[in-house]
């Protein structure tokens, strides 16, 4: 239970970074923290205490194995997160070229 709660705390730290920070790079780090926390949460869902990897080997009884599906899904999710981070950083570099700053309070040409 404590672990799930810590996941929530991590998620909230990431959300705080996205909502409150003014530097674009720090916002991207906040997005990264959100992604880590949700991946961690999904892996925890399939974890058992003292569980073992679900690999079928000869002469072994597999009794207490962890759920392998969340691990596979989290791998996909990590790759998606990598793609998003790469895209965000490349946009951030271009923004720095155009505006000369990373401060979002100074990047506001769009109105309405």
């Amino acid at each position, binding site marked *: 239970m404590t672990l799930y709660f810590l996941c929530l705390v991590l998620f909230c730290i990431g959300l705080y970074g*996205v909502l409150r920070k003014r530097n674009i790079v720090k916002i991207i780090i906040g997005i990264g923290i959100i992604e880590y926390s949700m991946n961690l949460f999904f892996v925890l869902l399939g974890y058992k205490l003292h569980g073992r990897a679900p690999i079928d080997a000869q002469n072994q009884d597999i009794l207490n194995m962890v759920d392998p599906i969340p691990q596979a899904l989290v791998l996909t999710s990590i790759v998606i997160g990598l793609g998003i981070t790469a895209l965000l950083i490349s946009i951030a570099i271009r923004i720095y070229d155009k505006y000369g700053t990373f401060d979002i309070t100074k990047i506001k040409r769009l109105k309405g």
Partner: protein
Amino acid sequence: MSNPIFITYFVIIPLFAAFFISLAGKYIKRLYVDAISSVFCFLLLVFSLYGVNVLHKLGGVLVYKIGGWVPPFGICMVLDGLSSFMLVTVNLVAFFICVYSVSYMEKYTDKPKFFTLFFLMLAGMNGLVVTGDLFNLFVFLEIASIASYALVAFGTEAEELEASFKYAIMGTVASSFIFIGIAFLYGFTSTLNMADMARVLTTKTNTLLLPFTAVLFLMGFGLKAALVPFHAWLPDAHPSAPASISAMLSGVLIKTLGVYAMIRIFFNILGITNIYLSAMMFLGGLSLITAVILALSQWDLKRLLAYHSISQIGYIFLGIGLGTPLGILGGLLHLFNHSVFKSLLFLNSGAIDYAINTRDLKEMSGLKEKMPVTANTNLIASMSIAGIPPFNGFFSKFIIILACIQKGFMGYALVAVIGSLLTLSSFMKVQKYAFLGELKEKYKNIKEVPMAMKVSMVGLALICIFGGFMLLPSLKFFLNSAVNVLLEGRGYAQVVLEAAAK
């Protein structure tokens, strides 16, 4: 005859097209790139119409099991009434936009890259619509979203980058909420197949978790669909993109990623209750009135259209949230109609931008004289969106208002009528400033846009005029089969699992 393997083509064709164009685009002539893209889009349209035809003859659902794994194991692709309805909407609009882009995208430097991203977005949307697996839905949603973040920034000007960054951050946070919702549902039901998940949920007695996941999904998909409390990114992101992409985003992306995914999960998996329905209706009514008031004061043509997108999404949610057969019919018909006339309006704004290089309404005047095709198609689209009788927008709005009155929600009916009047007034402003009045001296030498752009605008305008015919008894099966999928609720599980076991 009804071999379900053709369902996979909806994902395979655009993915193949995307990577083929990005690899070969450097070495072949631009003309071939245009031709290949248009042919692939046309193929997708043909397959989606073929799917409607097959389903009509078969009268059930088609399930393709990837790798032969019978659900709940493995991933399956499901083609039912709602999916085929959405596929026709997406691929019809995408085909016209692809033809339009052939000429329009000439002013940008790298056309093959544009088509690559365009097809990746299309692959994401088609995949999201046909998949029967909840995590696969998330993956396709991310493919479509990432492609759209990149497309918003395609011009790499200062405003476009700013809009794209804002959109990407908010979209990513929305995706995280959806992911957590999926994680909770997986932990609760130990399955990811949508049909099997619905079956397991009917056997559970303790369903306290469901409202919590529903809120997570409402937040996530509501942000993707730009419902009012979550709408802040849309008026920046949609106008900043190139016109053909604005049309794609406003026309179909917010509907597949937002509306379709949300109603599929709420109606078919979680099981609809009155609380969810009233939440959807409230958000719908709020978006439709707030956004239309915000739109009134806009002078940037594309920003005005973007606010109207939010308002029309409100109509769709209001109709579907009623939960009656008539209301859902109106909502889905409005979804189709809106994707047609809103794409047309964005293509018109792109045509004006192409000819006179401005989006400011105060700068334009008297363009009707020089650009008759653009002016007339824009008139048709404006009357459709405002709900003037012979055009398609009238029928769907009328059905939604009728359904509100039938169920006794007089307040919502009044809101819908007021919203429609305000829409009319703001499009009269567009007509007056852009097309009527005196032609300005500096625009004496402008020309009408090239042939490909004219063809796609006229094609979409014709659909606007004849869209009302979908309500004729002989064509109504197309909408009715989509409505029935939503009405059967968790019965979806049984239908799909039976079709998969065959």
